[in-house]
């Protein structure tokens, strides 16, 4: 089956991202396809490469990056939600005159159309959040 995944909450504050990660991993292990993981609302905070969690805790952001590399996952942060919350890739940082970008490897920034397209193209869209 082809899954689209929507993550609506940030890392550590909320379990949504952990559950989404575990779901994605289980689906891929079972031979399913993950069409796209879309991060919205505070979920975009899953894509910052500047998180420094305690060493004895899971690294939510790195975990997504590693899963993306292993399975060529498409991890997309909503551009409007990301900009509000200070998540910028190099192009966006330059466009808005900011002195840094902070997107983790494997993530890309794009529009909400990517969420709707994932909903249309996937057999199931599974939402993780409140």
């Amino acid at each position, binding site marked *: 089956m082809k899954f689209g995944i929507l993550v609506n909450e940030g890392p550590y504050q909320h379990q949504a991202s952990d559950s989404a990660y575990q779901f994605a991993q289980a689906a891929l292990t079972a031979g399913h396809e993950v069409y796209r993981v879309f991060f919205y609302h505070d979920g975009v905070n899953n894509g910052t490469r500047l998180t420094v969690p305690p060493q004895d805790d899971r690294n939510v952001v790195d975990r997504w990056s590693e899963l993306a590399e292993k399975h060529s996952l498409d991890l997309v942060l909503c551009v409007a939600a990301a900009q509000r919350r200070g998540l910028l890739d190099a192009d966006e940082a330059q466009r808005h005159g900011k002195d840094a970008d902070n997107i983790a490897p494997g993530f890309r920034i794009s529009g*909400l159309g990517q969420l709707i397209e994932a909903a*249309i193209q996937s057999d199931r869209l599974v939402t993780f959040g409140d």
Partner: protein
Amino acid sequence: MSEEGIIKKLMYVNRKAPYGTIYALESLEVVLIGAAFDQQVSLAFVDDGVYQLTRSQNTDGIGMKNFSPTYAALGDYDVRHIYVERESLEARGLTVEDLMPLTYEDEDDDWAEKESLRIVDSSELATLMGEQDVVLSF
């Protein structure tokens, strides 16, 4: 902009108050962008989400943008089915009179202005949800 002719039934479920958290505002942004995809779209308002549609919202005191006029424009985005759960209204002491009028123009009926908003009870809403291909819950 249709996706290779795939047309799905897509329902946006709005459960949160309009202010206090950003869910309502960002949900509306998805609806507006999603309108470009020519899908069969409906909106449902339940729980505190029914407050999103109340008339005469005034945000002067909280320093936030009052985005409620956007709901009245949904008809222009071809959103014709807006369901409000009766039980959620009643639990909050609200009636349909407290809600904004929401309409669309029907091009198949000489552009007659028609009601988009319908009050449904929870069992009917459950049936409607069951008919959807995609439910986006905010």
